[in-house]
């Protein structure tokens, strides 16, 4: 096995309402990350319980791996546009990736 070196990147995680899917993914895309990953979620927060039993009561968990510049931009843009009216949690963390050129 060849040696691989890891490169520091940022992971933005957004948890929000499933109804927002089309709009928020378009906005994220427009900021230019190399991609995103979505999983179905449910949960509880300041806006009560999202039981996941139907579309309006479901959440999404969106992850974006990107560089140090883009991460706060994505977090801030999404937060500014949606956080006051929609259930939303955003957090950012450090990750390491193998291919520096991809993110």
């Amino acid at each position, binding site marked *: 096995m060849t040696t691989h070196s890891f490169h520091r990147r940022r992971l933005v995680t957004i948890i929000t*309402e499933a109804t*927002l899917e089309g709009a928020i993914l378009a906005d994220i895309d427009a900021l230019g990350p190399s991609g995103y990953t979505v999983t179905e979620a449910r949960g509880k927060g300041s806006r009560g319980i999202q039981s*996941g*039993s139907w*579309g*309006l009561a479901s959440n999404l968990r969106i992850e974006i791996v990107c560089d140090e510049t883009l991460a706060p931009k994505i977090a801030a843009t999404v937060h500014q546009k949606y956080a006051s*009216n929609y259930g939303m949690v955003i957090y950012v963390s450090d990750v390491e990736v193998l291919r520096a050129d991809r993110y």
Partner: protein
Amino acid sequence: MPSLDPVILFFILGVVAGLSRSDLRLPAPIHDFLSMVLLLAIGLKGGVALSQQPLGEVVPQVIAVGLMGGLMPLLAFPVLYRLGHLPRADAASVAAHYGSVSVGTYAVAAAFLAHHDVTFEDHMPVFVAVLEIPAIVVGILLARGLEKGTRWGRMAQEVFLGRGLVLLIGGLLIGLGAGPEGVAPIKPLFFDLFKGVLALFLLDMGLIAAGHLGDLRRHGVFLLGFGLVMPLVGATIGATLGSALGLSVGGVALLSTMAASASYIAVPAAFRMIVPEANPALSLGASLGVTFPFNILLGVPLYYQLALQVHAFMEAL
């Protein structure tokens, strides 16, 4: 007293299981599947009916019913805004929910009539589709006014391309295109299973409604009252219009039920995107937590009695 239709018993089972914190739960994909079959089936039925009818007769009715859907939010809004002191966006949203229609309630009423051998006009499902939209448009106008910022194109997309309407109108067009013989081979799934699918759907709606009773507690007695009185007002308007349009007793009962019912699919989805500052817990608490159970359990037989009365009154004129 006529025995309870078993589909209602499924709804009650769901409410009881939900309130007693059973771990019973229908997976979201099954919820989607069941409501998809219901929407398509209702659309198909209406489309087949349209395929056998001179369209000219239906058009005036469609216009009248559409107007009713647009006017009802104008009636409800001031009550919610002035009397209920709801924020403007919330008042508009709740008003739009009640101007629109609940497909599940319609299905229960149609099943109730069939159960009691009351016939009705075959094209009633067309009105379900027609009623979905005007209330949304009026509701958004009430929330936003005619301000420049409103992105009407985006709004039209949210409204017309919402999955509920696509399935309902898609079903209508397919039924219209295929006609009675055309749909015969898909009858076993969409028509024969209809009441079984409705039963399972209502079981799920019972579980969901149980979850929304809590919302209601938080938002107080005004919404509870509104959720009980508005259907009665709507039912009266619907029955009067139905009678004026010359519908049969069954048709009057159905239009009355539609007017009495409140949306929980198309309207909340559209408002979530276009008027997001409106709190969905509020409108769904009223629509799903109060009006839906009320209509399912008590409203439908009541509106049928109302239809009988109104019809007799009109005959007597």
